[in-house]
């Protein structure tokens, strides 16, 4: 048993590493720019592209986004190894897209440098109608990756320059080399390089490594949203989720297990069909709908049934007595706990009924009856213990769910738990919090499965965890 435990715990390590890599990889592919989260509401900043670029680099650097993402880059020969050095996510996306289309990085680099060269030339050029148009257009090229759109812009710039002889003398050379550079990009496309793999080693100073180093010592970093340590935010949210889900799970099991046993014993009778119908109905009621109905009917005076508080977990004053506190908490948590309980209850009861029915038909039950044991002894000592395994399996999956929280219930009843935290964090691109939630859920899921295995062994002596024993 101990050896089995150790082996399972060791397996946690590679599993967790894979999970961290997948999580990290996904975050790299999500649309939206974490730097922009810090720079929004920056009205006037955007009117000054140079200032914006500067601010952008400052923020990107402070977030460590100027480092390569991972230990190595597996890509095709078409991509350069240091593409990450273009910190600006929009520009990097554009470069990637151009490379994907044409596969000739030297030419693309040449073209991209040409944009910068022309921009510099234009900013020093004599003011005028044409210079204005050209300047406004040239910086769009940094972001554009579609051939027709790029050509329209090159034409616009070209026409503007042609129309102004002074401007032409100042910048035509730069424009000419830019448009030639673009012609080279399109004409000398090298898609063949896309078929040759490339592997670049980036060293240990990469985003993933820096993040993992901290995670290993329990430091998930700070939330982008309010700079609080992620662990603090997780802990606050976890408390409420555990309370609500814990009560709901215990209640569900307490009601469902006897109910399942009862219906199994009275299988086929009227009690069974009534209860079964009721359970099916409960099971099929969508929880968001029930929660909303409860909210509308039982928390406002609109229908004369203002019996429960609408939302939150209650805020007892600091001098409230134990019973006052209890009352406030219970009244707040009653509806969410009900919503979490009824669905689970129906499901567990059905499972229990099924496995109990099966157990009751086994030979050993008949033997037990034949021995003259009482009905109670037959059911609880012999049949029940054998019917437990599906219920235990469910417990293994219920635990992680209890930690992850129920998004719908927490949002509707405004409970600051894990589900709500996760959704809010995803919407606000608060990646450190999302990583924290995922890692925590991963650990708990694995622990839940392990726990279920151990419980199997306890419930059923025939289950041997350690093969060698």
């Amino acid at each position, binding site marked *: 048993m101990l050896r089995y435990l150790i082996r399972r715990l060791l397996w946690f390590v590679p599993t967790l590493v894979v999970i961290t890599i997948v999580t990290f990889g996904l975050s790299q592919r999500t*649309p*939206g*720019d974490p730097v*922009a989260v*810090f*720079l*929004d509401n*920056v*009205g*006037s*900043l955007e*009117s000054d*592209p140079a*200032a914006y670029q500067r*601010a952008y680099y*400052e*923020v990107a650097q*402070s977030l460590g986004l100027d480092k390569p993402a991972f230990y190595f880059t597996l890509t095709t020969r078409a991509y350069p190894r240091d593409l990450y050095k273009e910190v600006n996510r*929009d520009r990097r996306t*554009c470069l990637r897209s151009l490379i994907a289309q044409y596969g000739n990085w030297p030419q693309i680099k040449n073209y991209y440098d040409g944009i910068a060269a022309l921009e510099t030339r234009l900013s020093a050029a004599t003011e*005028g*109608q*044409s210079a*204005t*148009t050209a*300047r*406004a257009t040239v910086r*769009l090229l940094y*972001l*554009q*990756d579609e051939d027709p*759109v790029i050509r*329209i*812009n090159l034409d616009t710039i070209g026409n503007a320059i042609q129309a102004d002889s002074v401007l032409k003398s100042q910048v035509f050379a730069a424009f000419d080399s830019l448009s030639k550079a673009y012609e080279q990009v399109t004409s000398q496309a090298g898609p063949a390089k896309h078929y040759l793999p490339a592997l670049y080693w980036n060293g240990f100073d990469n985003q993933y490594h820096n993040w993992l180093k901290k995670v290993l010592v329990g430091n998930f970093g700070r939330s982008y*949203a*309010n*700079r*609080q340590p992620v662990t603090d*935010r997780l802990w*606050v*949210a976890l408390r409420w989720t555990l309370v609500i889900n814990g009560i709901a799970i215990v209640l569900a099991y307490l009601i469902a297990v006897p109910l399942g046993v009862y219906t199994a014993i009275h299988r086929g009778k009227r009690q069974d069909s009534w209860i079964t119908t009721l359970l099916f109905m409960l099971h099929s009621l969508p929880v968001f709908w029930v929660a*909303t109905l409860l*909210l*509308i009917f039982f*928390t*406002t*005076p*609109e229908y004369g049934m*203002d019996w429960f*508080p*609408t*939302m939150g977990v209650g*805020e007892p004053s600091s001098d409230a007595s134990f019973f006052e506190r209890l009352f406030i908490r219970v009244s707040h948590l009653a509806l969410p706990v009900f919503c979490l309980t009824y669905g689970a209850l129906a499901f567990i009861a059905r499972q229990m009924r099924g496995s109990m029915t099966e157990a009751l038909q086994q030979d050993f039950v008949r033997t037990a009856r034949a021995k003259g044991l009482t009905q109670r002894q037959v059911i609880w000592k012999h049949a029940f213990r054998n019917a437990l395994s599906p219920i235990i399996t469910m417990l293994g999956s219920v635990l992680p769910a209890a930690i992850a929280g129920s998004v719908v219930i927490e*949002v*509707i*009843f*405004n409970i*600051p738990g894990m589900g*709500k935290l996760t959704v*809010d964090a995803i919407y606000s691109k608060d990646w450190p919090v999302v990583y924290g939630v995922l890692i925590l859920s991963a650990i708990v899921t694995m622990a839940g499965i392990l726990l279920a295995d151990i419980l199997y062994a306890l419930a059923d002596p025939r289950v041997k965890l350690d093969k060698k024993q």
Partner: protein
Amino acid sequence: MMRNAIYSAFLLSLTVLFVLGGCKSDKKEQANWKRKGSDVIVRLDADPDGLNPVLSSTGYATIVCNQIFSYLLFIDPVTLQLVPQLAKSLPAVEEITSGPYAGGVAYTFEIHDEAVWDDGKPVTANDYIFTLKAALNPLVNAARYRSFLSFIKDIQVDPANPKKFTVLTNEKYILGEEAVATTLPVLPAHLYDPQGFLSAISYKDMADEAKIADMAAKDQRLKQFADAFQSPETMNNKARISGSGPYRLESWVQGQSVEVIKKDNYWGDKLADKFPALAAYPDKLVFKPIGNAATALAALKAEEIDVMADIDPKDFTDMKNDKLINDRYNLATPISLSSFFIYINTQNPKLNDKRVRQALAYAINVDEIINTLYFGLAERLSSPVLPSKDYRNTDLKEVPYDPAKAKELLKAAGWMDSNNNGTVDKMINGKLTELSVTYLISPQREISKNIALLMQDNARKAGIGIEIVSKEFPEIIASLKKRDYELSSGGRTVSPTLWDPMQSWHTQGDNRTGFGNASSDSLIEQLRITLDKTKRDAMYKQLQAIIYDEQPEVYLYAPSGRLAVHKRFETPATAMYPGFFANLIKLKD
């Protein structure tokens, strides 16, 4: 003198005074109320992202911070004029004619003698200087403010009076006074920088971008300050959050509530009669973050919140006819400072003729959108300037819905339905092109989809095909930035005071439509430094006329604010976000 020139005429169109709870409610009504007393519970959409005004960036944080901290000047809720808060009066404004900042403007402020921090120490010029220095430190995550502050080159304190100082800027700017006095509230230097890391660095050095960037790399003090200042404590810890405003932070339970309590001997109480921006009525304010609109509405009906802004238009219309709500809440629809419109890519070959863009404006039935989707709770727009502004060009009429006129304009531009498929077409570069354009909307807002469907239906009657494309918001922004789109939904908040068109309309700004040329650019550049109201208004009107003619954006509507306040209170409804000032919510006698 100049100040008068800028501010004397703000009032004109804003004299409509919305005061909630004007009439007294009868006793029978009151008997049904669950909530009594002067404590106010306010709904927020989400938790504040910390309560450090320099670091926090959401509007929710600002709503709470404004109770704890105060600014040199604030905005009057009704007139939307700048009014003194920490300062004794609006600043003395003087043009600088000589010296290194010639061509700039000097603003002289004096802070109230009574103004003190919670420990009794006076609020001084040094605190103001410290606040700006904190934001200018390149290692502090406050890049968003730096460009507002970059024109402040030096601050001189009166040697005889530590509460009096002059802010020197190196350029004229119509929003200069606002930028100087309202960008950030004043923080206590001795509490936010107890070790005095920044005190030995002069403001002048901080404002010198090259110098400070160089220093940030070499000088440890900037780093030490940034680390201490950005520690979670200054954003979340009650003991470390302290300002000169009327309230102190009592508790903050993340995701549940933020409570602020009125200070026992708040220095502003004595002055509130003369300085309305210092007034603070409720003894306690509770801010509750409630994300889900249905939950918030239920909480309102159950009287678990007193004030709720930004109510869904449909819900708001239902609430008007709901006796339960009407017995307990006053509803108000103040003007709001936001406008909605359609971005047009003026460089797109299908849309580069202004007649096509004008036709599009005629092909959209904006009144129908307002009436069926906003239930009448919005005003039409004809230009980027809201109807309530006195610098709006009133000669520009809202474009009516007129498909026939739209067809006429399209025909003049060479678009006709040659193949009789219902959509007009034209030969472009030797190819027959249908006038069918994509319109980007964000799936997060249900209403934008319905608006798009109405538009699609309207435009078809004029022979314009609209294909609705739903994209996540960040992707829409990316498309707009690289101008790789045809039409897109758009919205922006507008300044309560003057309009600085630099950002959206200058060719070098964050100009998403491709509008503008050298002459419109120079008009904009002139405009933003013209402090003379008459001259500036003429320029405003000229710019609006150009935009109206070019139609790079089709202007739709400005939704009204939708606000509910419990009947035991009265408070001015304001155009300022979120529609009310929490400190001005006053119990009725």
